[in-house]
């Protein structure tokens, strides 16, 4: 079985995000970029399926600017076999919207015929949480989102989902789209031999036009602003004072 894993190049999760002065988005100039952490979990899950003999090839695909090639190399260094880069923008500030991404991924899936697509549940930049669901709909495949456990058996996958208030286990028929949640696994470090091998692994370069997908935006960003600054706390001298303060705040 072939597993397809879409990966997105996003602002590194350690970087303190800065809003651009004109409020049109966040500043990405000279900022450290990395693989979306949920996508890293998806790549790890695919590698584990391969190690368990359930998958035989892992293809990673990234859609965005040319620099996303670095993200693909990282996935190859972790253990993916092959990569496809779909260039869809020139400017790092251009975000390709979920529907366009899903359409391109659907076209890639039709070419590649994977038995399974594992994606991150969302990207940490825009937190859209939409691409996986849209992709499953476009392909007419089953979907299991927010996976915290995946067991593949023949042509079905049993997926434990993290839902509000607990866990839900679903069984989906493959081919399917699974989206990875935080607790699915802990991604590995790239080993030194794999880092050295990554460059020799094939990386196909395509453009959005190759798949006939229009990536022009449908959404308009009205405003981007910093989250409100958290107010400093206060120290209380006694339990009585604590209780009265809590009552004042309406917490009791």
């Amino acid at each position, binding site marked *: 079985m072939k597993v397809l894993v879409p990966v997105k190049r996003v602002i590194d999760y350690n970087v303190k995000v800065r809003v651009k002065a004109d409020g049109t988005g966040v500043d990405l100039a000279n900022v450290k970029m990395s693989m979306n952490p949920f996508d890293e979990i998806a790549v790890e899950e695919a590698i584990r399926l391969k190690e368990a003999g359930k998958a035989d090839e892992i293809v990673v695909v990234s859609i965005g600017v040319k620099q996303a*090639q*670095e993200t693909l*190399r*990282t996935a190859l*260094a972790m253990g993916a076999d092959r990569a496809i880069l779909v260039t869809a923008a020139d400017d790092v500030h251009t975000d390709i919207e979920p529907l366009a991404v899903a359409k391109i991924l659907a076209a890639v899936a039709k070419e590649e015929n994977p038995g399974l697509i594992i994606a991150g549940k969302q990207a940490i930049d825009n937190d859209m949480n939409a691409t996986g669901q849209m992709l499953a709909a476009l392909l007419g495949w089953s979907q299991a989102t927010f996976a915290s456990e995946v067991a593949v058996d023949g042509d079905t996958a049993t997926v434990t989902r993290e839902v509000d208030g607990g866990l839900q286990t679903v069984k989906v028929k493959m081919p399917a789209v699974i989206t990875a949640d935080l607790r699915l696994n802990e991604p590995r*470090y790239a080993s*030194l031999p794999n*880092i*050295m091998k990554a460059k020799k692994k094939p990386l196909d370069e395509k453009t959005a036009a190759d798949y006939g997908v229009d990536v022009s935006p449908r959404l308009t960003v009205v405003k981007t602003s910093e989250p409100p600054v958290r107010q400093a706390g206060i120290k209380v001298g006694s339990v009585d004072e604590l209780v009265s303060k809590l009552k004042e705040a309406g917490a009791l």
Partner: protein
Amino acid sequence: MHFGLSEEQDMIVNTVRAFVENEIYPHEAMVERTGQVPLELGLEIKQKVIDLGFYACNFPEEVGGAGLSHLDFTLVERELGRGSMALTHFFGRPQNILMACEGEQKEKYLLPAVRGEKMDALAMTEPDAGSDVRGMKCQAQRDGGDWVINGSKHFISGAEHADFFIVFVATGVDDTPKGPKKRITCFLVDRGTPGFEVREGYTSVSHRGYKNYILYFDNCRLPDAQVLGEVDGGFAVMNEWLYATRLTVAAFCVGRARRCFDHALSYAAERKQFGQQIAKFQGISFQIADMITEIDAADWLTLSGAWRLDQGMEANREIASAKLYASEMLARVTDATLQIHGGMGLMDDFPIERFWRDARVERIWDGTSEIQRHIISRDLFRPLGA
């Protein structure tokens, strides 16, 4: 000219940095408090590094290493410099000098060291022979076909976990026009060899947990098979293989300075006094500007030294400059960071006081700043006959 890293180098940096942040940082406070690394923890780190293929990455592929270039390896050292040296010791970079192993020595020392089965320690310094290496008193005398060693070595790092030691010993004296000159030979000494003892050393202000030991030789008998390189050829192997260790000190200093700087930067941006962030005061912000300028300068000086080695170019003076400047830079950066933190910088709730203490040794070991200045100035003046 191209100042960027390749994709591989970028991944090496990211991997080592993530490893240090996730596998080293969480244990640092404990190591500082107790002054030692529990052996199980050290072995656990070592095994993870072996699994990642980074163990002995400074060795060529033909002996089982990763065959990293000087530049790639310097990047590894730089990222390791962020973490506690007591812990990153288990990241395993055996002494390159083991490449001088011949015949059975390869099976007995070189290959097990590269595989992580045996750990090594290097012993050169003596109480009366620091910068003046040739002044060493530890000596070996011929007895039958063997060598008998007497004397001691101190400040021996890594001795705690070492299975064998690479020891430099005087094996004779030559009369030269400049006076008597000792001949030096390098020996491989197994832990447990009769007449050889490893004892706890001193308590150091720098790098707690990365302990130093004292080696004693009391009629320690060794056969010729334990000689590394040629008899009386100690300086030759030293110069061939230990030439670049100064670069690892420089790289350590750059990595450590960047970690320290991140604390200075974020603290200056958050800390408020007189109703505003202290970063708004030029007395603070200009210090920050000087710090990053010096760190970048040391970084490029260090990487260019490594690059010169990879190109097969002369690099002795450049490496000395990198070691000198990076270690002096780290002293200034850690001191300024502590000053920016004020009194809290001295408390062990923050790692700043530790960075400040650790920095002190970097100007001393692997050739003091004065020795580096000597190397640099001799390189410049020798051709002028001065």
